[in-house]
């Protein structure tokens, strides 16, 4: 078949790292989904802000892939068609993103891996490590259990993310690293589509099997599923909820934390992450070296064995104690947003109102 054809590696498109901050250029930002709050509400605006700040003449093209690998590929292609000079890619599937990286490189467009380390030899990488997030969540859960003196024979339920989402596997692996041996895992589920409804049903079955009183804690991979877990516990008549973990620092999750229903969530300080990505993108597009700024540049190796200069940020555990110092002081949410009527008489809000 290939006898009469040619395989073109990269014939046209993209003018390589020749853009300049003075003239401005176009930056493509590809985010994976819109169903968790952070991407549309924080990553995108923070990133656009950073670019506007660092390179006033630049423009940002933005796409969201709704958690669909092939959609993301189409979106990347549309951007390359548009003639972006650098891609900032938060991959739906880090491994499958190799095709996007490949295509960009064939058109001499550099790629910055954002949040997830896309395969295929990207130019820079900035992230909170998925694996680390899992360990941090688990660690927080262990601490909470210890505080309640549940000890070694504590029994927990694990509600992991979607079996078809590769990132869920990272969180799961990280969490297991900490939890295995420390506590006994009574029931463990993968949740199709990260669905809160499914998580609720799974939790109900776990309660049926183990008994509501026997559950000392629940590892839930994100805030959405935590809401389902808590609904199941409440419906089963549990008043004194065991610690439930979460991730993403959704507003609803923060509200559950101040109401005492959810124990913690993971807050990723997105502003520094987005700013770093912006700096990396500008460096890559203009062909300069990036030194890592205040966080310092390290080198990581991707699954294909390529070394990538990277900045890794630390995820922050948010519990009722440090809401003020994290999400509020970073401008993530305001007190008014959190303390709606339904939450006005929580300790947190009464305190905030009085101070």
């Amino acid at each position, binding site marked *: 078949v290939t006898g009469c054809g040619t395989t073109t590696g990269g014939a046209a498109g993209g003018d390589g790292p020749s853009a300049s901050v003075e003239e401005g250029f176009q930056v493509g930002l590809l985010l994976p989904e819109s169903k968790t709050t952070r991407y549309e509400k924080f990553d995108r605006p923070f990133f656009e802000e950073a670019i506007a700040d660092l390179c006033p003449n630049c423009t940002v093209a933005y796409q969201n892939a709704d958690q669909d690998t092939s959609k993301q590929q189409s979106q990347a292609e549309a951007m390359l068609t548009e003639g972006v000079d650098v891609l900032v890619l938060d991959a739906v599937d880090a491994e499958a993103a190799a095709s996007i990286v490949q295509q960009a490189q064939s058109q001499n467009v550099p790629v910055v891996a954002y949040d997830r380390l896309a395969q295929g030899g990207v130019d820079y990488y900035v992230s909170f490590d998925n694996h680390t997030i899992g360990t941090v969540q688990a660690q927080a859960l262990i601490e909470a259990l210890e505080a309640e003196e549940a000890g070694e024979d504590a029994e927990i339920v694990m509600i992991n993310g979607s079996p078809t989402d590769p990132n869920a596997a990272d969180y799961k692996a990280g969490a297991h690293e900490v939890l295995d041996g420390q506590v006994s895992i009574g029931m463990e589920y993968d949740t199709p589509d990260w669905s809160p*409804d499914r998580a609720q*049903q799974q939790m109900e*079955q776990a309660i049926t099997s183990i008994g509501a009183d026997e559950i000392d804690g629940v590892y839930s991979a994100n805030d959405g599923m935590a809401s389902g877990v808590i609904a199941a516990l409440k419906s089963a008549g549990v008043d004194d909820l065991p610690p439930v973990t979460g991730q993403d620092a959704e507003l*609803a999750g923060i509200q559950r934390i101040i109401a005492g229903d959810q124990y913690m969530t993971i807050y990723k300080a997105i502003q520094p992450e987005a700013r770093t990505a912006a700096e990396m993108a500008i460096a890559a597009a203009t062909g300069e070296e990036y030194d890592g700024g205040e966080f310092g540049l390290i080198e990581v190796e991707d699954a294909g064995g390529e070394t990538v200069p990277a900045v890794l940020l630390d995820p922050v555990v948010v519990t009722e104690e440090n809401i003020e110092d994290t999400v509020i002081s970073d401008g993530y949410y305001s007190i008014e947003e959190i303390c709606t009527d339904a939450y006005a008489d929580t300790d947190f809000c009464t305190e905030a109102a009085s101070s």
Partner: protein
Amino acid sequence: MAQQTPVAGETVPAPDPRPIVAGGSPRGLVQAGLRRLRGGELGALPVLVGLVVICVVFQSLNSNFLSPQNLSNLTLQVVSTGLMSCGVIMVLLLGEIDLSVGSVSGVSGAVLAVLAVNQGLPEPVAIALAVLTGALIGVVHGTIFAKVGVPAFVVTLAGLIGWQGAQLYLLGSDGTINVPYDGAIAYLTQTYFVPAVGWGIAVVAVGLYTGLTLYGERRRTAAGLPARSVAEVLLRAGLLAVPVFGGVAVLNLWNGVPLAFLIFLGFVVVFDLVLRKTRYGRMVFAVGGSAEAARRAGINVDLIRISVFALASTLAAVGGILAVSRGFAVSQSSGGGDVLMLAIAAAVIGGTSLFGGRGSAYSALLGGLVLGAITSGLYLLQMDSSVRYMITAAVLLVAVILDAVSRRSRRAHARG
């Protein structure tokens, strides 16, 4: 020539000797039953048997399966999708399909939460407005389908995509909205009846069924029409009483009969009665059987179609509201995922045809219970998700094969 009315009695033919009539005796009933079994006219029986088999298998694998707690949970787990199924059944009876029920349930849930939480409307008002939203959406779908002539598949596919967009838009960047644990919304699924009320409902239900059926058969006998014997009616009432009283007893062992499940049952019963006992239901079946014949009979086919789509979306909205109530929250993924598939699958497994004109509202209950039981049992057994998917598929097939085989023998007898 003497003028005669068309009802002249002159030529009443002798009774046809060919139909094989069952006597009223128990033996006659059993014989008729066996004949139906062979002839494939089993109605819901195969699915019921499938359900029993599923229960027995899971119970033998995990003794918690038939525990009152688990059964109580099961009743609540099937409610939301079951209500959507109810609407889907109406659409399937027309011979059409509604792909939008999941999205409509999601957008109605979002409307509910935005109105009740963000806008601070009283919860009952918000519930009413959310239901209304569903109804309006259905009218839009139905009108585009019936009046413009876009295939229902495409209209509701556009609905599936478009209303999901509206849901995302409504929920805005916050994503999830929590609803209070103690408002009217939450009470919908958090309310259980005390045992006495449960028993009362069961007695009234079985009593009404028996009374009305006996009255109906008496009228038939009085009119000289073939009727069921009293023995048969009582036998049927007994067969109905077993699950009803058994169910109440088991649920009373836990928290009592849940309000939400009663709402669901109420919808199923009402829809069944509407479909079987009213002109409207008759017209729905007629349009599903042959739209052209219905049109020639003077039925306003467009109106029936629009109303059915409106009903389907309304029920989807009700299902969405109950889902919000149960999860204390609405999120961007509400109504997404496999909700649509489950709603349609429940209808089909329960015996409603995809090709129109054949089915019953009870499909929603039976099919929903089959699917719910499979999921519940597999979660209890806690398998790898890959294995869980494969087993779900296998159990699904097995649960339907009995029905299929019996229907096959019926099909072999049907005219082309």
